[in-house]
């Protein structure tokens, strides 16, 4: 197995404190071998945040780290970075209006990137003061929160109560997401990057105890849905289920994470994680991370009905069982 370097995407709405966090991180001793890519993907144009970020390039360079205002595609930029120096990690800051999904998809499907980097974390900054209103009013902010592994509440030192309100606003969309605070850009490095054992943080998300199938709906319709299935399923049923998700939920499906008990390999659960219809290669764990051996999925998107999704999985498994029965 080749060693891939962790790539953390830091995203968040305009003015939510992303650049401050990046700048403070680069000032830490021992993290000089961090490549920082500042840019955005998607249809949104260069915005206020990017211009500010470009100014940070000088500060970052002065600490021995490399900042790169990326104009081309992500693969080309990472290739250029890797050719220029040896890096231990990559921090990619999006613009305030960016949708992180295309970045994640690119990192998954691009042959060079998928061999070179491993998505460690998607960290989302939410401003304690403006965050709740921004999440309520802007689809971009909701998508960022929906796609995050961890949400950092910023500026809560200015108003402690506002920090709690912002945390609740985030929880309304993402009851499963890891929450932490960042004051003046200070954040522990482990909150940005993956655990040392290289296990994706998604493991911890899906292995957290959760109620049986339920939905956390919200006015704006982006919801987090949890499914739990006790009986193991066929491997092909899992593939068909993912296909059914992609086909029927289409653009409403933002993210899928799951740890799945497979009939053909009951001791080695399969870990699936995808952004919209693009999935990482299925990861097979050597063993179950806990005593809980049920299959668990966390899906984030719009119009996701937990009862129907569970019925679809059950129906597909039943059909596969019927087709493979001797």
């Amino acid at each position, binding site marked *: 197995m080749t060693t891939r370097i962790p790539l953390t995407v830091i995203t968040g709405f305009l003015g939510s404190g992303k650049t401050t966090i990046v700048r403070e991180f680069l000032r830490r001793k021992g993290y000089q071998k961090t490549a920082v890519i500042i840019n955005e993907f998607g249809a949104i144009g260069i915005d206020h945040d990017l211009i500010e970020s470009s100014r940070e390039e000088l500060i970052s360079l002065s600490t021995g780290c490399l900042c790169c205002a990326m104009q081309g595609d992500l693969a080309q930029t990472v290739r250029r970075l890797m050719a220029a120096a040896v890096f231990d990690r990559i921090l990619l800051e999006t613009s305030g209006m960016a949708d992180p999904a295309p970045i994640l998809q690119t990192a998954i499907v691009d042959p060079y990137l998928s*061999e070179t980097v491993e998505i460690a974390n998607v960290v989302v900054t939410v401003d304690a003061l403006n965050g709740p209103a921004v999440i309520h009013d802007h689809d971009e902010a909701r998508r960022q929160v929906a796609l995050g592994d961890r949400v950092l509440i910023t500026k809560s030192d200015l108003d402690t109560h506002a920090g709690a309100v912002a945390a609740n606003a985030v929880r309304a969309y993402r009851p499963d997401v890891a929450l932490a605070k960042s004051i003046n850009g200070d954040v522990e490095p482990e909150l940005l990057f993956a655990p040392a054992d290289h296990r994706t943080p998604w493991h911890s998300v899906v292995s957290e105890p959760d109620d049986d199938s339920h939905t956390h709906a919200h006015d704006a319709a982006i919801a987090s849905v949890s499914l739990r299935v006790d009986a193991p399923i066929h491997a092909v049923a899992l593939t068909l289920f993912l*296909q059914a998700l992609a086909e029927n939920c*289409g653009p409403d499906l933002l993210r899928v994470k799951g740890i799945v008990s497979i009939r053909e390999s009951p001791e080695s659960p399969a870990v699936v994680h995808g952004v919209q*219809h693009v999935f990482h290669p299925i990861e097979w764990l050597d063993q179950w991370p806990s005593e809980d051996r049920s299959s668990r999925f966390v899906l984030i998107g719009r*119009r996701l*009905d937990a009862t129907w999704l569970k019925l679809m999985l059950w*129906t597909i498994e039943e059909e596969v069982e019927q087709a493979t029965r001797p």
Partner: protein
Amino acid sequence: MCFDTELKQNRNVRSNAIDSTTRDVIRGALSAWGTLDISTFLKPGDRVGAFEIHDGSGRVIASVRRDESPIGLVWQVGLGEGRERIFPSVVTALRYLRGHICPEREAGRVLFGQGESR
């Protein structure tokens, strides 16, 4: 209870289960596609176990039934006046139905990354 009666009852229980599965699968799919209660309505059909999808004007645009067959349970999907098509998988049945009811809706195709399977 004689064997025949028990068998018939078992078949009825199974048939009711098939009916409710059909109804719930189709209702959920229409909802996921964003068409239920907007442009389409789901009603029990004339044939046993069939469910009809009506458009806003009451016209039947599709009917769906799940039934036993020599190859096991299958999905029978009829579109308008056309003949029924049979699908052994709910995935392909819904794909066919969606292509007729909301062909403009974007449907993702699962794409797995090219990195090594960890």
